[in-house]
């Protein structure tokens, strides 16, 4: 409903936007008639909701194709990018956070904490431009565009996606590392970590079995909420790297006031976000025996 309302409030005339400023007014009216955009807002809304409930996302105004055909490939592309970014950032950031925590207050902690925070504070498009300049233009080792040629293998695709993924890694590192650091410091301070040390366990075992197991729980929740960001916040990155993901699709749809497409993409992003958060909650409770077994005596 909110998505629908927001899309409708956008100023401008759909037919005019598609046909351009110099088109004949009659042609514009006719197009509006065809698309149904001259009907009342309420009727359009009912139509749209009805369509979604039947599994029909409607037709794109601008591309003259069913929205489904546009959205699914874009979503898959975005998922690939998000997956790569995740595979890189999660282990690196957790490791960074844990290393920082183990040296709390020392030099390496400062470097990781301040570095991570700074990296996060810099917007992703700045990182993107920076990475392009360094790796694509100066060193010329990676392609500027993220879009691999059709039919490329997994590795080639990954190579193409590396730069945008790295830009995302920089942005996410700070968040995740900070959570991992905080969780680890808390667990290191806990009595059970002391118990483990006083049992005479080697430090490695204490960290692996007693500290990390407890410290990474809150981190998992943060990681999962970032999945939403990875899908929704990719507009700029995908544009810069000319990658046909859901963010880029959304951008083009907004440009052309393609309501069915805007609504569907935003809805999908919302659903992904919702599922990610749900998955995080479920995972958290599965890993945390205090929640999992709350109902056993």
């Amino acid at each position, binding site marked *: 409903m909110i998505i629908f309302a927001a899309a409708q409030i956008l100023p401008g005339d759909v037919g005019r936007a598609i046909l351009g400023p110099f088109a004949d007014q009659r042609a514009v009216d006719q197009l509006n008639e065809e698309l149904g955009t001259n009907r009342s807002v309420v009727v359009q809304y009912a139509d749209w909701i009805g369509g979604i409930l039947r599994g029909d996302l409607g037709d794109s105004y601008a591309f003259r194709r069913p929205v489904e055909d546009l959205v699914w490939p874009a979503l898959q592309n975005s998922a690939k990018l998000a997956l790569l970014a995740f595979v890189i950032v999660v282990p690196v950031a957790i490791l960074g956070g844990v290393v920082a925590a183990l040296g709390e207050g020392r030099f390496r902690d400062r470097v990781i904490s301040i570095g991570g925070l700074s990296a996060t504070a810099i917007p992703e498009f700045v990182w993107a431009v920076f990475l392009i300049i360094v790796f694509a233009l100066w060193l010329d080792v990676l392609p500027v565009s993220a879009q691999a040629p059709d039919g490329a293998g997994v590795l080639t695709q990954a190579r193409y996606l590396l730069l945008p993924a790295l830009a995302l890694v920089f942005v996410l590192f700070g968040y995740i590392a900070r959570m991992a650091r905080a969780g680890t410091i808390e667990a290191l301070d806990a009595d*059970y970590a*002391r118990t483990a040390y*006083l049992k005479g366990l080697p430090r490695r075992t204490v960290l692996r*079995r007693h500290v990390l197991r407890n410290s990474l729980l809150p981190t998992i929740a943060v990681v999962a909420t970032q999945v939403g960001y990875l899908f929704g916040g990719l507009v700029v990155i995908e544009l810069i790297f000319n990658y046909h993901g859901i963010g880029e699709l959304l951008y083009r749809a907004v440009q052309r006031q393609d309501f069915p497409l805007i609504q569907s993409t935003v809805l999908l992003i919302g659903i992904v976000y919702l599922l990610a958060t749900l998955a995080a909650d479920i995972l958290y409770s599965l890993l945390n*025996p*205090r929640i999992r077994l709350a109902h056993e005596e």
Partner: protein
Amino acid sequence: MSLAAPALELDDLHVAYTVRGVDRAVLRGVTLAIAAGESYGLVGESGCGKSTAAFALMRYLPRNGKITGGSIRIAGEELMGLSADGVRRLRATQVSMVYQDPGAALNPSMRVGDQVAEVFAVAGTSGGDARERSREMLARVQISDPDRVLRRYPHQLSGGMQQRVVIAMALASDPTLLILDEPTTGLDATVEAEVLDLVANLRAELGTSVLFISHNLAVIRKMCERVGVLYAGRLVEEGPAEAVFGDPRHPYTVGLLRCIPRGGLRKDEHRLDTIPGFLPQLGEVPGGCVFADRCGLVREVCREHEPPLYPVGPGRTSRCHFHAEAQSLPRTAAPQADAAFREPDGVPVVRAENVAKTFRHEGHDVRAVDALSVAVRAGETLGLVGESGSGKTTFARVLLGLTPPDDGSVIELDGRLLADRITKRDPEEVRALQIVFQNPDSALNRRFTVRRIIGRALTKLLGTRGAERDTRVRALADAVRLDAALLHSRPGQLSGGLKQRVAIARAFAGEPRLVVCDEPTSALDVSVQAAILNLLADLQRDRGVTYLFISHDLGVVRYLSDRIAVLYLGRLLELGPAEAVFEPPHHPYTEALLSAVPTLEGEERPRIRLAGEIPGHSEPPSGCVFHPRCPRKLGEVCELEEPPLAEVTPGRFLRCHIPLEDLRRLQAQLPQGKTTS
């Protein structure tokens, strides 16, 4: 002493913490030895260095702590200069530690079995063998169903059970030395007694030496053969437990022992002694005797020359120039209370009738308080005792209007019906009922100054403002013996005792009729506790205020209370004059509670053991709620019928099927709670 090397030898041990770049000494030249198989108690107030000593000899000091001198030998092996591997081997084989709060000491996300098995894994046994030995170990700490417990996570076990598991882990490596640091603090009296019995039995069985650290002198008296008294990082007195507690030779020990309300001391007969002043600041090194500033016997020589450890008897030493006179330490308070308490006039201030509170918890009804009827008379102290989960705090919250009771509950103030919720009570009623919490840290807003905290209470409760408010703040501070200079400080800058005074001043701001004191001294050291108890008694004497006093410390409750109510699973089991409740015949539950508490006199009393644990509230036992654990259960009648709360002698109520005469006869066979000092 046996032929084996002593389990522990500390020789001139110095430990310091680095605070803002400066080393501050915490332990200064502590020398002591624990023979093989011996049990040694270390006592002293918080901040004296007890725990630091324990962690130093586990070689587990915080990052800013370091051993600056001396030597530590465990079973003859020198610890100083040991490599990290050596330290680990030592922890794995020679020395183990158990500390307060077993819930935190266990890893919440690992099964108990895996945690116990780890100890064996370190020693080289793993897999099925480790599992089998874990099972044996749990059986050894008297866990009746080890297999089930091994599969549990810590949060699924009760506090007593958790502490057994921790003890099992500590003893699994068959250490030479077991360090127990406040192992029963925070546990209920009956659970504490069980854990202490267990430790004593295991020690006899395994021959482990024990270093027992506690602020509770009676526990040390019961558990230890020898004691050392630590003050400001110095050992000030040492000797056999019986001798040190029976005939102390250092003014600090004398003072500590006098702070404790014991042997049936009561507020109207006896003010408690306190130890004036404060522990020296961390790292502050007085030139002479460490205790000089707080000592009533201090003379010129004490400030100039630190006394050596004088031998004062067989195996005894005291670091006091005037150890022979230690017991003539002047009292800080007149032993005789100066003015009389107003006789409670029998008119109830607050009357609760049929008060019940049922919580809905995961689909079960949990009866926290069940049909409780009691009247608190003007000017009296009603003590509320019972183990955790007995409904004490819930009942207090219901009275205050913080927790709405079930329908049908009646609460009256001066004969007028009170609304369920505090928001529906008029200002006068809110003012009349106030509370002092256990933990002043969380009860006071740490961003406000003391003046503002007390002033706010005045404005909110009485509408006092401006100069009038200022005068009243001063008067209140004066009433709780809080120096006016402290009004500008914030709670963070005050010690625990001072914070509790602020909390008391706040509670008294609205001239309350009844003040609920919910474990107000549990978090405090004994000398501070004594001062707070004196203050509460003074306020009652001067203002005729009524207290509902909740505490798990029976000595404290007995000191302050006129009448005592004993709660179990939300039911009132016994109610009567304080003295009568402490004298047989009692309700079997009261009897068990009393027998669980160790005394300073160390007399051996037969312990009444309670079977099992407090049952869950969701399925309260049929009949008498206490029957599943009652050692004196008659038979079927207890299971089927709940006994009425009968007035057995004037003013004394018991809820038990056993006739009073039978109880008297049964309990007369055991010397009970009657203690003299």
